[in-house]
C-alpha cells in the first residue's frame, strides 16, 4: 500500500474561553491518498473547517492543537512553526477558501500574486515565474491567460476568480490541497465547473484533496471518500458511494435523508429533530445521542464511540445495517 499523502491521527484542537475549554476538533483521524478527494462534511460548527486549518497550521489564536498528529507523507508537521511551516504551505500543501472575492488581494494583479508565490517556493527567474503563472492560469481554464495576467481581481467574474484562487493554490505544485467550501459562494452553474476542475487537477496531477463542505451534493459529485463530522468528532468515514447510499451512522443517515441530491428518488426530505449541540455543551458519550432515534443508555455514557472502538466505518455503538437502512 502506498503511503497516504496526508494522515491525521487523533487530532484534538482546543479553544480556551471564559466558558471553559472548547474542543472544536476532538480525536479525528483519517488519511488521504494521492489523487484522492476526501470530502469532509458536516453542519456548520462541526469542526470541519477547523480540521483543515489545523492541518495547514492556520489556526487562529487561541485555538491550538493539543494532541494528535498530522503527517504529510509520513512526516509529522503539526508541531512546525515559522519558516519550516511556511516552506510547506503553498509548496507542499495549498488551500482554497470559500469566497474568491475576498481571497484575492484587491490591490495586486493576479500575475503579481501568482509570481510572488511561485518565486517564494521555486527557484525560478522572474520571467520564468511569469511564464509559469500564465501556464497555471491556462491550466485552470482562464481564457487568454497571457492577456489577463495583469488584470486585477475585480476585473474577473466570480467563477473566474475562483479559478485564479485554484491556480494560486496549485502554482507551486503542492501534494495536498485543502479546499474549504470552494463552491459555496458561487452560482450553481459555476459550481459544477469548479468541481470538475478540481477533479481534473486531482486526477491529472495526483494531488490529494481535502474538500471541506456542508453540501452533500458537492461531496457526492466530487469526493472519492467522505468523512462526516459531528460536534468535532468523526461520525462516519468511508467511500462516498457507500456512505451516501448505505449510511451506517444514524446522523449520516439523517443527513442524507435531508439532502435533496443524496436522497434522490425519495418522496420527501426528512429532518433530524433538534440541533447540533454547542461546543460548550457537548453531551457525554455519543455527541449525537440526544437526537438519535436509536440511542440507548450506553450511548450517553463515556467514553463515546469512535471509529476504532466500533465499526471501522461509523462511530456508533449501534450502527445501521444495510437491511435496516433499506427499511427506512
Amino acid at each position, binding site marked *: 500500500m502506498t503511503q497516504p499523502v496526508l494522515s491525521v491521527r487523533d487530532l484534538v484542537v482546543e*479553544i480556551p474561553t*471564559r466558558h471553559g475549554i*472548547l474542543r*472544536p476538533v476532538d480525536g479525528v483521524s483519517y488519511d488521504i491518498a494521492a489523487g484522492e478527494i476526501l470530502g469532509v462534511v458536516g*453542519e*456548520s*460548527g462541526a469542526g470541519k473547517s477547523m480540521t483543515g486549518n489545523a492541518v495547514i497550521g492556520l489556526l487562529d489564536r487561541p485555538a491550538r492543537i493539543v494532541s494528535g498528529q498530522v503527517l504529510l507523507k509520513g512526516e509529522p508537521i503539526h508541531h512546525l512553526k515559522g519558516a519550516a511551516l511556511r516552506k510547506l504551505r503553498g509548496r507542499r500543501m495549498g488551500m482554497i477558501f470559500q469566497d474568491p472575492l475576498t481571497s484575492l488581494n484587491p490591490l495586486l494583479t493576479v500575475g503579481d500574486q501568482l509570481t510572488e508565490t511561485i518565486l517564494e517556493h521555486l527557484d525560478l527567474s522572474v520571467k520564468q515565474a511569469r511564464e509559469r503563472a500564465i501556464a497555471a492560469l491556462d491550466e485552470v481554464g482562464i481564457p487568454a491567460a497571457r492577456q489577463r495576467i495583469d488584470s486585477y481581481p475585480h476585473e474577473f467574474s466570480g467563477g473566474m476568480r475562483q479559478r485564479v484562487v485554484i491556480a494560486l493554490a496549485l502554482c507551486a505544485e503542492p501534494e495536498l490541497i485543502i479546499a474549504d467550501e470552494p463552491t459555496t459562494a458561487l452560482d450553481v452553474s459555476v459550481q459544477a465547473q469548479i468541481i470538475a476542475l478540481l477533479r481534473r487537477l486531482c486526477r491529472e496531477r495526483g494531488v490529494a484533496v481535502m474538500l471541506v463542505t456542508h453540501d452533500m451534493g458537492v461531496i457526492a459529485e466530487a469526493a472519492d471518500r467522505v468523512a462526516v463530522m459531528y460536534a468535532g468528532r468523526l461520525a462516519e468515514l468511508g467511500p462516498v458511494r457507500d456512505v451516501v447510499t448505505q449510511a451506517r451512522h444514524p446522523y449520516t443517515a439523517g443527513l442524507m435523508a435531508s439532502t435533496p441530491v443524496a436522497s434522490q428518488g425519495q418522496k420527501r426530505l426528512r429532518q433530524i429533530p*433538534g*440541533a*447540533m*449541540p*454547542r*461546543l460548550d*455543551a457537548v453531551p457525554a458519550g455519543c455527541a449525537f445521542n440526544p437526537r438519535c432515534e436509536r440511542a440507548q443508555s450506553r450511548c450517553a455514557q463515556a467514553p463515546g464511540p469512535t471509529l476504532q472502538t466500533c465499526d471501522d466505518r461509523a462511530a456508533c455503538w449501534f450502527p445501521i445495517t444495510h437491511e435496516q437502512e433499506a427499511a427506512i
Partner: protein
Amino acid sequence: MSDPQNPAETRPAPGRMARAWQSDLAYSFRHSPVAMISALVVAVLVLSAVFAPWIAPHNPFDPGSLNLMNGFTPPGAPNAFTGDTFLLGTDDQGRDVFSTILYGMRISLFVGFSAVLLAMVIGVVLGLLAGYLGGWVESVIMRTADIQLTFPAILVAMLIFGVAKGITPPEYRDQMAIYVLILAIGLSDWVQFARVVRGATLVEKNRDYVQAARLVGRRPFSIMIRHILPNALNAVLVIATISLALAIIAEATLSFLGVGAPPTKPSLGTLIRIGQGYMFSGEWWILLFPALTLLALALSINLLGDWLRDALNPRLR
C-alpha cells in the same frame, strides 16, 4: 463556533442578547487592568469635580473670599504674611490651588461633555440625514463637512469665539465665555460623527431588514432611529469618548491662544496657561498640579476610549 439555527438549545432572546453583549463588555472590562484603573481615575476626578463645592476647602470663584496676600504660597508651607497653609499651595491671586483645580475641572468637564454632546447631536443627525436621504441633501451636508474640515478646528473655534464675543452684550460676556467655548469646540468636531454615521447608514440602508421596514411603510424617521442608529452606536460611542479627551485638551489650547475660560472662573486649561508663566520662576506648583490633573483626566479617558474601541469591535479581539 456556535450555531445560529439551533432551536433546541436555549437561544437568548433579543433583550437578553443585549445583556449578553453587555456582559461581554463587562467581561472584557474586568480583564483589563488598564481599563479598570482608567475608569477609577475618571470616576474619582469626575466625582470630585461634581462635588467640588463640598470637597474644596475654599471657593476660588468667590473673589470676595480671596486674600491677595496669600499669593504664591508653596504647598504645605505657611504663607509669609498671613500664616495660612494650603495643601497644594496658592496661585498668583492667592487662590488655593487644590480648590481651583477642583472647580476648574468642573468647567473643563462641563465644556468637554457639552461640546461632545453638541458635536454628537449635530453629527449624528446630519450623518443620518445624509446617508439615508442621499441626493442633494447629502451633497450639501458632506460639502459643508468638507468646508468645516477645510478650516482647522482651532481656527474655527477662534473665529466662533471672536464672533460670539462680538455679538454678546458686554455684561454677559463673562458668563458667555464658557458657552461660546462649548459652541466653538462642538461645532468644530461634528464632522467625524457625521462621517461615521453616514457610512453606517449607507451600509445599513440597503440591508434587507431596513428595506423590509420600508416596504411595510415605516416612516423614514422611525427607520433611522430604530434600525440604523443602533448599528452606528458603537462607533459613535468610541468617537465620543476620544472626542471628550480631545475637547478638554482643545479647551486648554484655546486658552493658550487667549480664547479660553476667563481667569476669574478658570478651567484646567486656563490654569495651565497661567501656570506655564511660572515654569522658570520656581513656583512649580501652579503649573504642575493642574497639568498632572489634566494629564490624568485626558489620559484615562483616552485609555478608556482605546479599550472601548477594541472591546466593542469583536473583530479586533
